[in-house]
């Protein structure tokens, strides 16, 4: 007999996709007022699990009980009806519609045959007051900052009477301050009796807010532990299955001459908005410069301008002694600049090319990979075999198309290609986004190795942990400007968080 005290009791959930066992007999229990962390690497099956709970996937085996009775959940509508609410990683909000319209959609208040928007706005105002989630019901959603949009998502679930809230990687898009606010909101909601399933791969957040944590690895249920007494190291070990170095050990930097100098750089985006507004900084050989900042503050445009993909509007970029402000991507790469792009699917690999071809994208046109305009397949294959071995890329063969690799392995292909040449400068943009913990550790070690070899490394990351773990010096970008430049050992998390949010003092 199922436990009536539990809001949710899932037993033996199994889901198979062609060739993959995504979830193998996973158990999960949630009590009222409890915050349960769901922890696992990418591809460990966290998303599959909650999608089964929410009726997006149908489990092949297993049962779900809610408050003691068996629940039949065939589609999200059933889950909503049973009191479940889900805040998706990618917000499910209609941008041009108002907050109230988004929240009440699907369960709209009516007056006669008409949709009663005024009443909807009143209901939303009342709800946001009751749960302490302040937001203007009349505001247009796409005008709101990400943190508020997330609030709208939570209200959407609460409007439908959710007693169980599933939050899928909710902090991935937030500033540290917004994250703290969200964690507080979660505690407040739990205090009213709502049960929360909190998916994240950030160990610190798990420790900060959850009561218990369920860990998945390779689709298998590894264990459910009380958070009390757990440490980042113990959780990481559960998640990966071996002990993991969370903080890379590195020697002091032996800093040399400036390799990259950027002076008063201004860059516009495709719509003509100036997103980099007079950035100036230097990266010297033998150091890692971390660029911290909430996404969308000009980091992407900065990197695109530095690598020649996007024209600079104004300012000067020098690599070594060479002015590369107007240079082409090829010229810049040939000088000795490695680029690990932010969007690996779009800019990093060619999905339909083989792993081997992807590994020579930066050198395919010259010896030994091409002679007299003819490609040298033996050399290309030899190169690929060596790099796959050296960088531990999990691929069936070097002929496998790049798109069929997992995120972490795609990233390894890119890192292998870019670092296979001796570079003066390595530009790495969000190098470990969506990459599993094991690969993160590997990529971090590679970046530190480049620095120790004497290369200058520019690391752009929205993850403060990554910046703190790797950078020797940190600059903060806010609205296209460099608002701070400091040695890493002088920086604190709180201080960077404030700078990233635009606080100036």
């Amino acid at each position, binding site marked *: 007999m199922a436990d009536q005290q539990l809001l949710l009791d899932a037993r033996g959930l199994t889901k198979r996709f062609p060739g993959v066992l995504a979830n193998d007999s996973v158990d999960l229990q949630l009590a009222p007022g409890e915050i349960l962390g769901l922890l696992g690497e990418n591809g460990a099956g966290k998303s599959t699990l909650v*999608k089964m709970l929410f009726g*997006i*996937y149908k489990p092949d085996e297993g049962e779900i009980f809610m408050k003691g009775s068996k629940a039949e959940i065939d589609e*999200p*509508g059933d889950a*909503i009806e049973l009191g479940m609410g*889900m805040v*998706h990683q*990618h*917000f*499910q*909000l*209609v*941008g*041009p*519609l108002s907050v109230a*319209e*988004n929240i009440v*959609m*699907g*369960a*709209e208040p*009516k007056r006669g*045959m*008409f*949709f009663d928007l005024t009443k909807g706005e009143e209901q939303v105002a009342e709800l946001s007051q009751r749960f302490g989630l302040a937001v203007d019901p009349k505001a247009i959603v796409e005008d709101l900052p990400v943190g508020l949009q997330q609030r709208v998502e939570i209200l*959407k679930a609460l409007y*439908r009477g959710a007693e169980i809230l599933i939050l899928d990687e909710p902090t991935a898009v937030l500033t540290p301050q917004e994250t703290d606010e969200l964690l507080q909101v979660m505690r407040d909601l739990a205090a009213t009796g709502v049960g929360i399933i909190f998916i994240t791969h950030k160990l610190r957040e798990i420790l900060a807010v959850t009561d218990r944590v369920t860990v998945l690895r390779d689709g298998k249920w590894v264990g459910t532990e009380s958070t009390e007494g757990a440490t980042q190291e113990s959780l990481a070990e559960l998640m990966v299955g071996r002990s993991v170095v969370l903080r890379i050990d590195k020697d002091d930097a032996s800093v040399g001459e400036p390799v990259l100098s950027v002076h008063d750089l*201004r860059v*516009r985006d495709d*719509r*003509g*908005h*100036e997103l980099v*507004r*007079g950035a100036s900084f230097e990266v010297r050989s033998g150091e890692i410069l971390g660029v911290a900042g909430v996404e969308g503050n000009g980091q992407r445009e900065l990197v695109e301008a530095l690598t020649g993909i996007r024209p600079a509007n104004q300012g000067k970029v020098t690599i070594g002694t060479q002015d590369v402000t107007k240079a082409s991507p090829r010229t810049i790469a040939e000088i000795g600049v490695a680029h690990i792009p932010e969007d690996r699917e779009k800019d990093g690999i060619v999905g339909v090319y083989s792993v081997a071809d992807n590994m020579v994208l930066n050198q395919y046109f010259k010896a030994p990979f091409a002679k007299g305009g003819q490609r040298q397949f033996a050399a290309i294959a030899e190169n690929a075999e060596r790099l796959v071995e050296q960088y531990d890329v999990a691929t069936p063969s070097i002929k496998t198309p790049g798109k069929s690799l997992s995120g972490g392995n795609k990233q390894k292909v890119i890192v292998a290609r870019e670092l296979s040449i001796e570079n003066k400068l390595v530009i790495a943009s969000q190098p470990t986004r969506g990459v599993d913990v094991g690969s993160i550790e590997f990529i971090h070690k590679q970046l530190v190795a480049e620095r120790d070899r004497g290369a200058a490394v520019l690391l752009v990351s929205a993850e403060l942990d990554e910046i703190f773990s790797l950078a020797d010096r940190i600059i903060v970008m806010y609205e296209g400007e460099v608002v701070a430049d400091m040695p890493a050992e002088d920086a604190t998390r709180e201080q960077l968080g404030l700078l990233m949010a635009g606080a100036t003092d």
Partner: protein
Amino acid sequence: MTTATATTSPTVKATISKYLPWAIALAVMFAILFAMSWDSRQTEAVGAATVRAAAPLLLGALCGLIGERSGIINIGIEGQILLSAYCGFMVSSLSADASLPTVISLILGVVGGVAASALVGFFMAWCAVSLKMDQIIAGTVVNIFALGFTSYAYVQGRTQPRYPNWTVPGLSELPFVGDVLFNHGPLTYLAFFCVVGVHIALFRTTWGLRTRAIGEHPGAADTVGVDVARMRYKNMIIAGAMAGLAGMLLIQSASAFSRNMSNGKGFIALAVMLFGRYRPLGVLGAALLLGFFTALQSQLQFNQAFDIPPQFFGMIPFLLTIAVLAVAGLAARPPAAAGSPYEKE
């Protein structure tokens, strides 16, 4: 300030695209004033013809608007208009042959025409939603089929009963506006009621809220229990009915079918939709504007006031369509999900 330079060009663009339509509308008013001073009977004729010409554009644009707001780009409006005109005409003509009363045969014709176009709407929904086909190709198929089929099947010499003119008692006696606004066939009035109806439905009903949602972010609608596929089917059928009425409007004014009688109206309707920024009331203004130029050009062709080949005047609405598309393209923001099939997880 750096901010100023950063935002100048988009702001200027936005301002231009916001006010240009109104500037054009003003120019139109001056043109009317000019025409009035020239001959008041002609002005009245142009005014009434504007309303007549605007009506099918209006309905065609509403068809496109409902589809695109739901996430389906419909370039097959031209074909839907032509096909409904043919089917409606044949139904009316055959039922008149069977000696049914005139009113009945006219009503049957409208029902037939609307049903034919609604069926095409269903077909396009099937292509776009169930087959996840390229929507432009689906629309092109409809256009080619409609022109080929109606040209092949049409037999010259067939006739159908004429539509009555409904004069609104009292109002039609008013000087100028009486003839311009209140002396038309029944379907013309219906077209204008449809605009108001769609406007209210789109912005004041749950259907409208959900329709706007599935065109912008079907995933969001889906996660709150809105059946995206079903709604897209339903809306394409409703939209098809609108285009069907547009086809019947052509029959109302010509009382007979003729080869390729839609003559690009379905495409001009797309321009009207864009110019009206996917809003029914905007579509109303845009349709009246293009209707005015259509009326003006036929008047100019007719009275041969200038020694210019009439074909040049015939070009006016199409040139204006190109101009509108070039300018309005800057301002109109299509629904984000328009054109892409919804992939459910």
